[in-house]
């Protein structure tokens, strides 16, 4: 579903990603971890078609970027650091607006369904700027799932959430793990990252430093390995 080969991203003299190779299969949930500045967000923005690679090949759901970016976007749902919502619009207006951009049929039914799923049906007519961070994040998940994407990219979804909101979000992310979608999530939260994933990747200094299947690693062992590979 996601295929990355020899990916390099440079910002002037700064090399953010160096020769990165990895792939994500349909139905697979990958947690991507690494220290700040390791290149996680840069990688996700390239996968989301928001940024162009300097070199290398990226393919999303069979569409090679950047040429196939328009088609790939129909298959991608991206949850960013920011909610990417309009504070002055209500929850349902936000979803309706993005549904129009995605040319969806049966918009009202889809909006109702998603608001129910993220427990915001009762606040559907309230402006998003009155929502808590957790509610905005839930609405963002609804925005991400609006067009039923085959590839879901989540950039540190737990940041700024209290424990209750984090638990609620984790439950939603678990439901994304439905055997159909490829999910890539960046996180600094090892426990959440390992609990949700099929495979854990560690990225350091723009390179893939470690990769292992969930059933091959223990939480304690992962911490030790993480410290080792990110310090090298």
């Amino acid at each position, binding site marked *: 579903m996601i295929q990355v080969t020899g990916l390099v991203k440079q910002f002037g003299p700064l090399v953010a990603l160096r020769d990165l190779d990895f792939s994500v299969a349909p139905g697979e949930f990958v947690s991507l971890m690494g220290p700040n500045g390791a290149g996680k967000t840069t990688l996700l923005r390239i996968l989301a078609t*928001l940024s162009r690679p300097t070199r290398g090949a990226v393919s999303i759901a069979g569409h090679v970027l950047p040429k196939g970016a328009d*088609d790939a976007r129909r298959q*991608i749902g991206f949850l*960013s650091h*920011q909610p*990417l919502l309009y504070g002055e*619009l209500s929850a349902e207006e936000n979803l309706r607006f993005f549904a129009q*951009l*995605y040319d969806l049929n049966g918009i009202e039914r889809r909006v109702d369904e998603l608001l129910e799923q993220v427990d915001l049906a009762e606040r559907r007519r309230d402006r998003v700027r009155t929502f808590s961070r957790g509610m905005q994040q839930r609405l963002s998940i609804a925005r991400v799932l609006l067009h039923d994407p085959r590839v879901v990219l989540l950039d540190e979804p737990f940041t700024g959430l209290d424990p209750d909101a984090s638990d609620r979000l984790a439950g939603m992310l678990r439901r994304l793990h439905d055997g159909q979608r490829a999910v890539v999530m960046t996180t600094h939260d090892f426990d959440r990252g390992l609990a949700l994933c099929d495979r854990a990747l560690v990225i350091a200094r723009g390179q893939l430093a470690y990769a292992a299947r969930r059933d091959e690693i223990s939480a304690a062992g992962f911490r030790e390995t993480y410290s080792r590979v990110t310090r090298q």
Partner: protein
Amino acid sequence: MSAYLHKVFAIVAKDLTTEVRSREMLSSMGAFAVLVIFVFAFAFDLRAARSGTTIVAPGVLWVVITFAGMLGLNRSLAAEFDRGSFDGLRLSPIDRSAIFVGKALGNFVFMSAVEAIVLPLFVVFFNLPFLKPLILLSVVLGTIGFAGVGTLLAAMSASTRLRDVLLPILMLPVALPALLAAVKCTAGALDDAPFELWGHWLALLTAYDLALVGLAFLTFDFIVEE
């Protein structure tokens, strides 16, 4: 084509709804425009001969429209970048030009709303017939060029730290031919001068709109690419 227009109007409707609720842009543009008119009204001696006022007034009108417009253009794109929602638009499977057309149309509507306040005030303060069809045509043509080119340049400057300074620096040289033509058209129509004497300025303004707004339409994709 209808799908394209549907998305363009979704963006315009979103911008209008957001603005009607927040009143961030229109209130600052409107207040600025009214204050500038007051400043000019008191700075120039309105007791001067009518011809003297006529010479000054078209220029003053376009100074007000230009600076109030730049204020709005800056806010329109900066707000999208600040809250990250511009990425939401870029993530959508829509032609980048649809984002440009939607944002430019929105800016055109906001500028027109401010002009709807400004023009009657000019009639009151300068005691000149600003609400003539040919003046309105010049204002519409000038606003199309200004909103189109301004939307592109605002998108260029919005992601920079110096956007408040950068937009005027980029905008004024590029908009100069349109401003000059708009002032000449406004003056010609205000003076009831024969159309042959100033019609070429109207042609220049129209050509500017077609060329520069067309160029902005074609290059927006490249400009917003990271």
